[in-house]
């Protein structure tokens, strides 16, 4: 990585450097915020699926118990 920076031509940042950096940071921040929100939603979905699995297993157990009781 340091070799890459060593061979790269120097950028004439000057006064414009901070503005260019700000624009690119805004872009990265937007993508990061979006991905974070989507990751939170994926976690919520995972919880919902686990809850559904628990509910289905509980319903199956209750149905089996009822069949046993009738028999």
């Amino acid at each position, binding site marked *: 990585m340091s070799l890459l920076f060593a061979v790269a*031509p120097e*950028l004439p940042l000057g006064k414009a450097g901070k*503005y260019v950096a700000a624009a690119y940071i805004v872009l990265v921040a*937007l993508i990061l915020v979006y991905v974070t929100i989507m990751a939170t939603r994926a976690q919520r979905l995972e919880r919902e699926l686990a809850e559904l699995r628990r509910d289905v297993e509980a319903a199956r157990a209750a149905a089996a118990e009822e069949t046993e009781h009738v028999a």
Partner: protein
Amino acid sequence: MFFYAPLDVTQGFVQKIFYIHVPLAIVSLCGFMFGGAMAIGYLRTGDRKWDMRSYVAIHMALIFGIGGLITGSIWAKASWGHWWVWNEPTLVSFLIVLLLFCTYQPMRFSIEDPERQSRYASVFAIVAGAFVPLNYVAVQMATAYVHPRVLTLGGANLPPSMGFVFVVSLLAFVLLYVTLWKYEMASKNARSQVRRLRRTLLGDDLVRPVGRSAAPR
């Protein structure tokens, strides 16, 4: 972007913002039109998946549009010394389109009946989507104040090396838009499948009712 593309003679290093600002704005405007095209699919078929596609397309385009607006504002401050110029048709017209689509989600949220919500939202998306190219042509015909007109109806006014970097950047943003659109579509579809599965397996009693939402149900 930083090393291959040459420095702009008049603007210098600050012109590097062009490679993210312009693709963001273009992809955003195309995303609005894409949302309108998906909405036609809903009105033709009545299938909710088209409404979902339209909703996600507009949602993603709004995010890209906000990115384009902020990066453009930073560029304006660096080049012209002002964050915003009100008498520049390019800037104001983009803001109008963005504000128009900002009303899309509150409009959806205000309609409780899902069927009516989808229908009204589709009509809105088509009309507002058709406004985007009209707006572009109107801006091209207007007199420019300070905003440069690099991409015109006649073609692009860019040297080949800058044009190449711009096309690569534009392609990258299109791919980003498509990827995020598919990602959000998959997430929303999975959520709705889970709800449907819960209803099928456990009955309606164990499914929490969905509250009022701007997203298609």
